[in-house]
């Protein structure tokens, strides 16, 4: 597939937003059960949630660049019964709204304690909103992942690993940003976030590696034989029916060499996983916001490469008909 930058930015940006929101949710939950110290609501959660919202909005804006007719985007909410894309279109604004409400509530400190148990755990109103937000976040990860995973003839995508990777990689990048953010605004939470970032990044590394391994072993179900219905082992395309290119040659192929693809793969492995882990470890030890921020930035850039590769690697069966001859 042709890696469209609008979609690359959409998925990576909302991933950061979603991850960051999950990080805030986790932090607050841990605090609620007093596993973590409580942080300044306005400074940490409100600002954090606004930053997460910023990423979500960025993703949304990026997505509009992918649309031929963005003025009609509202129509995209109608097919939630069948279309994961439609579901994403519903869930993304829902999440944005929840994150916005969550941020506002923290900012204005509308945070009634609804319930306190014997051991002192408190259920705050913001946490209830955050729970909905958490559900929306996971729903959005599922929607985004399933947009790709549901296309069965894109065999590279058609796997639960696609959803898992979208979830883990988005979460990892959000946690990484939250780690750096926490070091500034809630240093007491930094270690917590750093460790989780390391765990999630490592987990993402493992599941992404799993999908790379899986994809390396894929055997295309469709062949020229099934595409044409011709039973012969030696078939060659001599003409596509046009020579100046078409949607079929532009949208479905990356037009890069195998070596280029391989290089991108190693680049994203290093940038999205190896270097961030090292920087996180270092940053955590030194409590250095710069290093921690660098970990996030490097990882985010790595994820851009990862996403490019994700699209490029998917071999659409329509390419059997469009071998650019």
């Amino acid at each position, binding site marked *: 597939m042709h890696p469209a930058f609008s979609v690359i930015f959409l998925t990576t940006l909302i991933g950061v937003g979603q991850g960051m929101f999950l990080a805030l949710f986790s932090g607050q939950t841990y605090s609620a059960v007093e596993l973590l110290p409580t942080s300044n609501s306005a400074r940490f959660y409100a600002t954090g949630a606004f930053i997460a919202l910023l990423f979500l909005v960025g993703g949304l804006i990026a997505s509009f660049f992918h649309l031929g007719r963005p003025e009609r985007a509202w129509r995209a909410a109608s097919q939630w019964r069948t279309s994961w894309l439609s579901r994403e279109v519903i869930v993304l604004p829902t999440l944005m709204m929840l994150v916005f409400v969550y941020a506002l509530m923290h900012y204005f400190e509308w945070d009634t304690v609804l319930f306190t148990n014997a051991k002192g755990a408190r259920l705050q109103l913001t946490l209830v909103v955050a729970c909905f937000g958490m559900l929306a976040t996971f729903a959005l990860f599922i929607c985004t992942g399933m947009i790709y995973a549901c296309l069965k003839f894109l065999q590279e995508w058609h796997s639960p690993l696609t959803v898992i990777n979208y979830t883990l990689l988005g979460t990892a990048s959000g946690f990484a940003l939250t780690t750096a953010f926490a070091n500034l605004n809630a240093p007491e939470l930094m270690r917590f976030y750093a460790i989780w970032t390391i765990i999630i990044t490592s987990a993402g590394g493992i599941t992404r590696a799993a999908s790379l391994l899986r994809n390396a072993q894929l055997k295309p179900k469709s062949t020229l034989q099934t595409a044409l219905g011709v039973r012969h082992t030696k078939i*060659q395309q001599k003409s596509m029916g046009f020579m*100046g290119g078409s949607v079929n040659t532009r949208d479905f192929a990356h037009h890069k060499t195998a070596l280029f693809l391989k290089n991108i793969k190693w680049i994203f492995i290093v940038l999205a996983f190896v270097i961030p882990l090292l920087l996180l470890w270092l940053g955590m030890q030194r409590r250095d916001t710069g290093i921690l921020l660098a970990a996030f930035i490097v990882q985010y850039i790595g994820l851009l490469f990862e996403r490019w590769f994700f699209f490029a690697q998917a071999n659409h069966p329509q390419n059997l008909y469009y071998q650019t*001859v």
Partner: protein
Amino acid sequence: MTVVHNPIQAPAGRIEVKNTTCYMCACRCGIRVTLRDGEIRYIQGNPDHPLNKGVICAKGASGIMKQYSPARLTRPLRRKEGADRGDAQFEPISWEEAFSTIATRLEKIRSTDPKKFALFTGRDQMQALTGLFAKQFGTPNYAAHGGFCSVNMATGMIYTIGGSFWEFGGPDLDRARLFVMIGTAEDHHSNPLKMALSKFKRNGGRFISINPIRSGYSAIADEWVPIKPGTDGALLLALIHELIRTGLYDRDFLVQYSNAAELVSVDPASDDSGLFVRTDIPRDPDCFDPQDRVWWDRASDKPTPARKADTDPFLLGEFAMPDGRRVKPSFQLLKDRVAHYTPEWASEVTGIPVETIKRLAYEMGITARDEKIELPIAWTDAWGKDHDTVTGNPVAFHAMRGLAAHSNGFQTIRALSILMSILGTIDRPGGFRHKAPFPRPIPPCAKPPKSPNDVKPNTVLNGMPLGWPADPNDLFVDDDGKPVRIDKAFSWEYPLAAHGLMHNVITNAWRGDPYHIDTLLIFMANMAWNSTMNTTHVRQMLNDKDDNGEYKIPFLIVCDAFQSEMTAYADIVLPDTTYLERHDAMSMLDRPISEYDGPVDSVRIPVVPPKGECKPFQEVLIELGSRLKLPAFTTASGTRKYRDYPDFIVNYETEPGSGIGFLAGWRGKGGEKFMKGEPNPNQWEMYAKHNCVFHYEMPKSYQYMRNWNRGYLKWAQEHRLTRYAEPINIHIYSEVLMKFRRAAQGKWEGRIPPVHLRKRIETHFDPLPFYSEPLESALTDKHQYPLNAVTQRPMAMYHSWDSQNAWLRQIHPYNFLHVHPKTAQAVGIVDGSWIWIESMHGKVRCLCRYSEAVEPGTVWTWNAIGKAKGAWRLEPNANESEQGFLLNHLISEELPSCEAGAHVSNSDPLTGQAGWYDVRVRIYPAGADEAHVTSPQFTAMPALPGTGTTRKWQGFFAGMFTKKKTA
């Protein structure tokens, strides 16, 4: 769910539907044009048209993009003072200025030496009119593109069976069981043949394609027999050999309907050696082909007048006439001729396995004999014998330029015609069938002028500019045997050049050999690009000046509808209309669209008004004819006779009161007559009412065996299709050719060829078909140039016409050289890479594409996709000029100096047919440092005044190029 966009809502607007005839190629299908608010919305095949019955091809369906092409010329232009030819620097002028300039010049020429005016036309469909104009002007220097197209096909078959493929005849696939297509480009005779092929295959017929390349029609063949280019003659002769050896020929057919049993004097000592033995039955002076030949009767073992009742001749043997002359039947001579043409020999030449050649012969012979058709149709033969049935041997053939465009093509096509004849398939069900006005006498009656005195100032040409020589006395030469025509047609160099040699006109005129001309008028022929051989040099010749600084071809007028490469070289450019803007007549006097069942002609009627100042070329001719007061265009009192072309078509008669005009349908005052009848003032309206086509279906009994069908021949004579109603017997042995050979041997009491051409005439004017290596090939170092290179046009494009077509050019914006992988790998060429292809005349850089569907000794490409930069209003970086290429740069219009002369045309020595496919080449990889563009490149041609604009993108909506959504 509610649908917002109604998918069946027709766009608003006033809808009109008009019928006319297509012209996106030469097939002339009927089309129905839907207009929306006067703009073209849809062009479909006309379901009520006999030729295409509603279908249309890719080109026909893209007519809209031709109509709205930015390459269209819309104003008469004059080359700017000081600009060189080829610079394409023009200024618009008025039609009046154009006409007066041309008429003044032509008037002077006509009053001094009319042959200094030459008129040559491309793939036009108005040769009856252009030929008439030339004749009336008095110049013999006229021809259309036939000489560089397929004149070998026309002559080879017409000199043998009295008819030919395409317009004049074709395979009867309705009833054939075996169809053999040989040397046919991938789409020849486009829609009719496609329709017939599909029907034939669905009826279970077997389709064999013999071709170096498997594409187009060949793709759906049941069997593909790859063959080396130029060797078809060898295969055909071996097939004849095998059919005679096994006795699979149709003896009865040959005896009665050909000259197979007629005795030929073979005594070298005899005066009539090589001629038919003739009886002394008194001849009818009005008779074309006296039936005065002799058979050797089997029963009496004596000579007997041919076709005498109750005699049966020997086809084989050698006999002594009572006067002692040794004689043989033609068929014995054929058998002797093919004795050495064994399948084993042919296999070496053609590259086809021996078993395949034998099997092909057996399939043909067995299908012809064992699947015989008897149709219950009674008819009477030319000798008065009644037949209750029409017999058919269901083996059909089709062939075209693959055979024709070689310098050995004429004899190859003779061999094909003879193969078809010995199988007994001529004008019979399931075989070859004629189309009116054919069959014609062998050769047909029209004759070229015979001497320089036939060209006189202010006088109509004495003779037809083009014709069919029957013996050396019909040649158009002076007393020294030198040519009179600028292209040397009908001279000893190319005696049977029935369509002229357009491919040599520019070179000859430039060199002044045989003489210099003054004005060359080119209509619709791209002689500065794909229609010429030796393109690079011909472009230089067009722009070459003599020592006085005058152009060697002093005045050049080009009429075309589009900004072709040729327009760049014009002194005056005349903007023609498109086919949708004009009247036209596809006349019985020219090349009509007849069906097997009877004559058909058709017309074009404008569906939209001409763009800008465009004027149909016919109007130009009628205007010039009137201004020059040419007799046919002038009344007795010296005034203009015809208002315009439609008026001319209705009222012109070949002779005053002849009743024969351009259109055969709805003649007579009220349209009650056909073929012959006085002019009908409402003829156009009647054509318009009848789908623009006139089709007369003859009685069944006239539809077969027309060479010998008394009823048909009399009907054809009565309706003035032919002058004679005599049987047209097949020339297995060609006495016509023998007469030329005898002239070369000094045994002819008339014109004798010049010494240097005698051997050439004696060799090639063989009365029996033979195989010889193509001339150019024989003069090439084949070690250095081991490959054959051929071209064909793709189905979605007609020669150079369609690169300006925004839809068609998306299918073929550039071309590859197709090479077998092993051939390419042997010289280190990678699939898709840049390579050089080189002949002894030049070299071209192009892109290579591997293909398993080409014979490994052959490379091929699409013709005419490559364009000169800027031509056809393509942008300078268009693929056509950057990646597309033209093979013509490698092909010379003249042979290397040889015994026949220093400047002999690269053509068939009998007919002057251009030997396009004789070129030998080699290929090698382009250097890594070389530019990735084709070579040669030419300076970009600027946009001519009056042409359109090109947009970065466009959306066509029934005439509107819009940037807004219109629905």
